[in-house]
């Protein structure tokens, strides 16, 4: 089974690397943003570089979870591929675990790239405790945002509309969060704190674990379970 998991992870990663657009937005774009924003507002401000680094990691975890897991799983069902996978002599969860693992590997690689950029471009060194916070944030965040993406894609709306809705939710979450800047407006702050990205940013920044994450997780898992049983897939 370990061999199958390894193969599943490898092939899922390979599929990801072959989608040029996904590689750009998952690997290159975060570094690009970090580089530009860091130079614009934080070249001499280490606190801002620290905030920006964790913010961009949080942003990438959110986009990976929302865009690279839910829609992919839905596509397996919509295309009928899932019917084949179910006939194979293995638990289909291994296949999906491979998908998640490939995303985690990609996210860890992005973290390494961002840390390297921080050192080379801004002479900012990441501590071991920060690295541990990043890894924890990646695991919890990917899990949470994957279920959010699954809920949206399985909500029964058409493929194009669900892609648009994920985009909308992602950008509302991003612009009301503390990912790239401090927010002084109380109303925006309130919206940002209700949405899950700020809680994940707290983990990434070592500010502690908000219990709201558990509420979000329970809510999205329960909703996904309900929608998954309700949605019927055509042949």
């Amino acid at each position, binding site marked *: 089974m370990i061999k199958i998991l390894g*193969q599943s992870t490898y*092939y899922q990663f390979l*599929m990801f690397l072959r989608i040029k657009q996904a590689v750009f937005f998952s690997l290159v774009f975060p570094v690009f943003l970090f580089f530009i924003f860091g130079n614009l507002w934080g070249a001499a401000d280490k606190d801002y570089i620290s905030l920006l680094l964790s913010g961009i990691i949080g942003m990438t975890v959110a986009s990976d979870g929302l865009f690279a897991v839910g829609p992919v799983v839905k596509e397996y069902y919509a295309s009928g591929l899932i*019917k*084949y996978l179910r*006939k*194979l002599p293995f638990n289909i969860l291994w296949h999906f675990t491979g998908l998640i693992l490939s995303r985690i590997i990609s996210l860890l690689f992005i973290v390494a790239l961002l840390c390297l950029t921080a050192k080379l471009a801004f002479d900012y060194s990441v501590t071991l405790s920060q690295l541990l916070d990043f890894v924890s944030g990646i695991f919890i965040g990917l899990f949470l945002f994957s279920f959010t993406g699954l809920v949206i894609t399985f909500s029964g709306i058409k493929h194009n509309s669900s892609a648009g809705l994920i985009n909308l939710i992602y950008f509302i979450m991003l612009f009301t969060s503390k990912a790239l800047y401090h927010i002084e407006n109380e109303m925006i702050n309130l919206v940002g704190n209700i949405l899950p990205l700020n809680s994940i940013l707290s983990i990434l920044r070592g500010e502690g674990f908000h219990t709201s994450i558990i509420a979000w997780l329970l809510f999205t898992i329960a909703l996904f379970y309900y929608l998954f049983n309700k949605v019927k897939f055509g*042949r």
Partner: protein
Amino acid sequence: MKDIIVSDITYTVKGKTILSNVSLSVDTQDSFALLGENGSGKSTLIDIILNDIKPDKGHVRFFENTKSNFDKIGVLYDHSPLFPMLKVEESIRYFTSIYGLKYQDIEKQYFELFEIQKIQKTLTRELSQGEKKRVGILLSIIHNPDLLVLDEPFANLDPTITGRIWNTLKNKNRTIFFTTHDWKKAEKQATKIGFIYGGKIIHQPKSPKQILETLPALKKITISNTDDFAKNLTNWQYYIYDESIHIFFDEKSDLLKTINTLTSNFSIQEVDLKDAYLFHVHNMTT
């Protein structure tokens, strides 16, 4: 032994009956073709047999066991089981590792037969429908199953390799249950034929020869259905399809004489499975 037993399957969607009390069985080593027009319920029955849809009533058994186990069954749906962004050889490698097989063995055994060498480095999304079908069929037999359930195995397949692929599938006297739109191929390859119409099995499954023998004659005269021709045909058995009347014709009868008095525009042909299907549908609906 019965490799597939379908008992009394009924399936409805939003009040519309898709399948109604369908029962059939497939004996070991049989090549069973399920034939029917579009929307007759063929693919839904395949989905129910393969446990992808739960029927409202009835059950399916494989190898006379109560538990479904797909280890000895190979499947092919009417779409490809492949990942668009993987190359053909990568998909095959992934499937072989799941089955615990050696890729090299599969390569040696099947690649030439299925003409995989030419496409093994190609991404699935760049394959033609026929190439995808070839890979799909290959993946359905790599674990050497005893039973194959195939939805449209001949669709989009290059006619020059159809015979070769069919022989490979029938290797080791495998039992095959398949649907197809190619009635001529079904007549040639199947040992048993089942007809489905409006979600019902309309005729007891038989061999192609036996089915043709159920018809009133082994030849037919086809004429254009104009001028209320059917009114003059009270003494003969016929069916109307596609704006033509198909009249079963025994050379000893005086049908030809009658037709000659009505029109000079007609043709005489041997009957085939399609005639049998349409004749039974005609009898059922009139």
